[in-house]
């Protein structure tokens, strides 16, 4: 994506000077970042800060997938959208804000719901996937697609006053199914729309997702793989815990797995989790 594939342009040197000054990041880190491509699935509470910081940091290509429109009740946490975009596509809104803060990054708009029918093709254009969605079937689908395509996945979640963060399918680490082979009962799957969320909590987790994606893209630091960050906003407590490694019995990433692109495309994630992939705007309006 950069027109300076082997060096930084004078404008880039000035724009990213505070990154270049960092001994552990420097020109090499910035160059790797500028050649990387990152896809953020979901332009909501987690996606808003993740997209802003990824755009600002100077990744080469930044993709946004979402099918939703901006609503007034998103605005308390989805800071990438302005009131002027209420009723319009979240992807268009997020892309416009990203371009306004960094016109040198290539922003790609995917104005559609992520499905097994389009995920392989969309993911194929990116090095790193950021899961900023809000429901269980999407999380299984995104993780499985990352395993099938061999892409690292930066996964964040937030609900109420709590947040969670980890990196899946990275460097021999576990996938989402290694941790959660069986979907939880639907009664245990609360959404922000049902249970509420303090707006700044996904803000913190989304920023941490951007950081992990930047670390992987620039090959700097130790990504949060095999570890999970648990954030409790009310108590101001954060713990980073050690989680299991890749499971040899995992049905998707395990040794004898036969889960490939064809199986992925035919897998019914809504049936598996007994939860719809997305609440349709129509249904929302009827509520």
């Amino acid at each position, binding site marked *: 994506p950069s027109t300076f594939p082997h060096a930084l342009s004078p404008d880039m040197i000035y724009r990213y000077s505070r990154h270049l000054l960092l001994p552990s990041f420097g020109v090499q880190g910035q160059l790797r970042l500028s050649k990387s491509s990152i896809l953020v699935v979901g332009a909501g509470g987690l996606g808003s800060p993740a997209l802003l910081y990824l755009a600002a940091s100077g990744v080469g290509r930044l993709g946004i997938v979402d099918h939703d429109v901006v609503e007034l009740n998103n605005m308390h946490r989805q800071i990438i959208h302005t009131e002027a975009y209420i009723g319009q596509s979240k992807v268009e809104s997020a892309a416009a804000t990203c371009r306004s803060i960094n016109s040198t990054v290539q922003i790609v708009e995917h104005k559609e719901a992520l499905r097994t029918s389009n995920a392989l093709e969309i993911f194929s254009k990116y090095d790193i996937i950021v899961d900023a969605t809000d429901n269980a079937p999407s999380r299984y689908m995104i993780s499985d697609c990352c395993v099938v395509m061999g892409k690292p996945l930066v996964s964040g979640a937030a*609900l109420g006053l709590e947040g969670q963060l980890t990196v899946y399918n990275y460097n021999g680490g576990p996938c989402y199914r290694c941790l959660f082979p*069986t979907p939880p009962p639907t009664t*245990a799957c609360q*959404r*922000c729309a049902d249970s509420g969320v303090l707006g700044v909590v*996904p803000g913190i987790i989304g920023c941490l997702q951007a950081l992990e994606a930047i670390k992987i893209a620039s090959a700097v630091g130790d990504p949060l793989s095999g570890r*999970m960050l648990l954030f409790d906003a009310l*108590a101001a407590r954060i713990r980073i815990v*050690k*989680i299991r490694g890749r499971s040899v019995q995992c049905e998707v990433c395990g040794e004898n797995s036969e889960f490939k692109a064809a199986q992925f495309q035919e897998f019914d994630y809504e049936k598996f989790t007994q939860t719809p992939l997305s609440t349709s705007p129509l249904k929302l309006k009827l509520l």
Partner: protein
Amino acid sequence: MDMTLILDFKCSGGLELLCNSVKIHNVSIDPENGVGKFIMKDLLSWVRSNLIKERPEMFMKGDTVRPGVLVLVNDCDWELSGQLDTTLEEKDVVVFISTLHGG
């Protein structure tokens, strides 16, 4: 029994709602199996009988935790320490956390 085990256990990710919204429990338990050894399986039975007042299916399935719950013993996934057979000792900290999906 000559041994009483004192340990902390914490619930979060929504599981605290099953325990009157209390997140941190400091419990003293007398092991009942007569060998003075107390394992995670014993703690789960104790929690089920003593703490979970309603909707136990939100916490347990069979004799283990329900899908979607991570169990951490001293900040470490219980898969790494033997799951239900993990031996608990004085001052251990056990965390039950429900995975979140929101965003």
